[in-house]
């Protein structure tokens, strides 16, 4: 069941990307996703891929750990591929069987789409693999800070997120303990139909809820006792700093943005014969 006590995907390391500011990485991911969707040809996509693979190299992550993240979206990938392949119209018919028609444009578009999703998921997992959930939260809080001026409770939201992160391992431990204890009393969570299984969860859920409320109450007292009064007049110890690494990341992205824009415009003129084949119908 819940065997793995490690939380999140974080893969410990000290690489260039591990040390970069979380805000940089968050902004870079957003920019990357936008660029992926702005790209309207394979050359642009290739440029994005080049930067992605550079990032993976710099992160010193084992390639397997990055590729593993794709497992989660395989179903969606297959489904959209099949739909696109069969229902994408076009001019150059490749294959026909009864009412099923597959066009070259459909194949090209499907490949394009799959690659786009691939890169998107891989890039997100590079972020979560190189960034601890804690510094991710810090980054989000810092980026959302401007929203304070429209009375958005940024500090409270960040505190909620960080407390949630803090308690995940504790609650996983607790759940495992309760599961073991009820199993020792003969509870069976693995067999029977869906209704039986839902019913079997009650002896886990109730003690877990009770304990969560007890913890919440105690945590509240402990926070009060440590002079917590909300975000007013509060200082923050941890400050995020942009450094040379972040400048390098931003520079790389400036190059990529320029590259994608230029490639989007001039794609048709680079190797026109190849482009003709890979042209996406519009």
């Amino acid at each position, binding site marked *: 069941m819940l*065997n*793995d*006590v*490690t939380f999140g995907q974080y*893969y*410990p390391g000290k690489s260039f990307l591990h040390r970069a500011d979380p805000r940089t990485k968050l902004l870079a991911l957003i920019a990357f996703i936008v660029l992926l969707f702005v790209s309207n040809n394979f050359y642009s996509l290739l440029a994005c891929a080049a930067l992605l693979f550079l990032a993976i190299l710099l992160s010193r992550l084992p390639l397997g750990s990055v590729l593993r993240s794709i497992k989660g979206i395989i179903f969606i990938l297959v489904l959209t591929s099949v739909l696109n392949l069969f229902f994408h119209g076009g001019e150059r018919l490749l294959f026909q069987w009864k009412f099923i028609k597959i066009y070259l444009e459909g194949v090209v578009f499907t490949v394009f789409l799959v690659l786009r999703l691939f890169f998107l998921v891989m890039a997100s997992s590079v972020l979560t693999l190189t960034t*601890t*959930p*804690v510094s991710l939260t810090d980054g989000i809080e810092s980026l959302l800070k401007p929203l304070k001026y429209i009375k958005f409770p940024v500090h409270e939201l960040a*505190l909620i997120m*960080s*407390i949630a*992160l*803090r308690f995940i*391992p*504790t609650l996983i431990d607790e759940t495992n*303990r*309760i599961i*073991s*204890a*009820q*199993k*020792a*009393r*003969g*509870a*069976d969570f693995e067999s029977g139909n869906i209704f039986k299984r839902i019913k079997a969860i*009650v*002896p886990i859920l*109730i*003690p877990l809820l*009770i*304990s969560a409320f*007890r*913890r919440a109450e*105690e*945590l509240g*007292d*402990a*926070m*009060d*006792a*440590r*002079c*917590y*009064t909300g975000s007013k*007049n*509060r*200082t*923050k*110890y*941890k*400050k995020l700093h942009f450094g040379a690494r972040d400048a390098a990341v931003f520079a790389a992205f400036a190059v990529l943005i320029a590259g994608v824009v230029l490639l989007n415009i001039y794609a048709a003129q680079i190797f026109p014969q190849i482009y003709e084949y890979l042209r996406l119908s519009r």
Partner: protein
Amino acid sequence: MSEPVIICQNLKFAYPGQEGYALNGINLTVGKGEFLSVIGHNGSGKSTLARLFNGLLTANEGKITVFGKDVSLRENIAEIRRHVGIVFQNPDNQTVASIVEDDVAFGPENLGVEREEIGRRIEWALSAVGMEKFRTATPSRLSGGQKQRIAVAGVLAVKPDVLILDESTAMLDPRGRREVIDVVRRLNKEEGMTIILITHFMDEALLADRTIVLNKGEIALEGTPDKIFENGDALETFNLRLPEISVICQNLRAAGMEIGNDLTPSRLAEDILKNLHSRGIFSAQTGKPKSAQIISDHLWDIDIKNLSYTYSKKSPFATNALKGVNLHIDDGEFFGIIGHTGSGKSTLIQHLNALIKLPQAEKRYHKPKAKKGVVPPPEPSVTIGKFNLADKKTDFKALRASVGMVFQYPEYQLFAETVFADVAFGLKNFNKNLTDEEIEAAVKSSVEIVGLNYEEVKDKSPFDLSGGQKRRVAIAGVIVTKPHILVLDEPAAGLDPKGKKEIMELLHKLHEEWCKTVIIVSHDMDEVAENCTRAAVISEGRVFDCAVCADLFARESELRALGLDVPLTVKISSLLAENGIAVQSDCTAKDFTSKVIGIYGGANA
């Protein structure tokens, strides 16, 4: 007395919706730099008092002033909390952040302290608790004692003048307790911090300058610890017990020896030696203790061989919890398993009823192929009576019905609407064909043997019972299947001294009448020495030794090197042995005392 920092006058407090006062007329003054310990049974009002001191609760009647400020006024609360810090019981529930330094920073951040100053405070607070190396660590990966020291640092960073510890050592193992108590004593001595230590451990209460005993919301006794612990009968009436050492002193005095009210093993050993010397006894040797004979038919022996276990295998966080454990426990023993938190003892006992299965018993097990030139590790095996736990075909459900397992704080696993339903849960799981009458009879007898009144509690919600009663219900819910072997993880944890004694008495009763073999996991050496016939010490995933208590604790220096404690009697014995008096007891206080008296009285004849 030095300048008062906290003054309570006729303090009364009642929890809304509860009958009677939780605190009823407390008058107390705490002086600056004082080390005050507060003891009292569960529900005596100790924690309530702590919460009133810094305004987490507000008194119904009476007055508290802290540094001259009235706690009942809202505008004073913020300042009072800066002066009075509290460390609570459960270290897990006081940590806000996932990184140590962020958590320590929480208090000063709330006060609006500047960044550089917060940095300095983190450094100071962490070094005050000896955790400076863990500044960027994750609290959830630390030991209990380390977590609690982080909690202390988090409170220290606010720079309070008074530090309250509300049973802060109750959930820790002896090493963790020692770590926290050492920190507290150093803060008191070196920084002159005022300490209020609320505790269930009498040996901790002894360390204070002054002790108060709370009973049913009133101060029953007040004075220096040696005065308080002179009077065992009085403490007994307040549901407390004398510290073990005071009991030994009393019994020796009763035998005519001149023993002061010694509260440390070294002072007691000195006194004993003085008495013996005055009678001209400078060397002596007692006979070896008789080892208890267990009459066993060996039908339900537990045999463990080559047991290893790794958590989070093949991940960067893999940890070897067990590294080749060999252990044999005879049918009918009252057995102890000793070890630190994280020594692997919990992993070990979870194998006993296949909550963790041996690899060979897993559905998808394939025998690893032998590699050339590599000797394969020996296959682990566990047998319990007729059950072979390495066999896929073993009826694990039947095994679990025969090996009862009571986890730590078992009351946290109660879930049903009534006591009856909760106790019957296991029974119905294991045997679906029982009639209602059979179920009722089994539930009734198990609720009664744990010492509860069946008619009174059966329809009550388990959540409405007191802490001690809940634990009994939880135990009843395990023994209801009449297991042959009962395993309990820290059965007495978190209970007050009287509750502890009662639980141990209950276990002996169960051992005689209900379950043949009883195995307790404990880190309280005195508890093991007093109750178990044999014990095993687990350290870092290995069995250090498994023997009768007398032989086990004879390896005192090695146990200490492992960071484990030894029973009190062993400490005194070894001090006596250095001076030529060899007392070989079975490590129980009773046997030790009678042997010392024997040597002393022997000179009379």
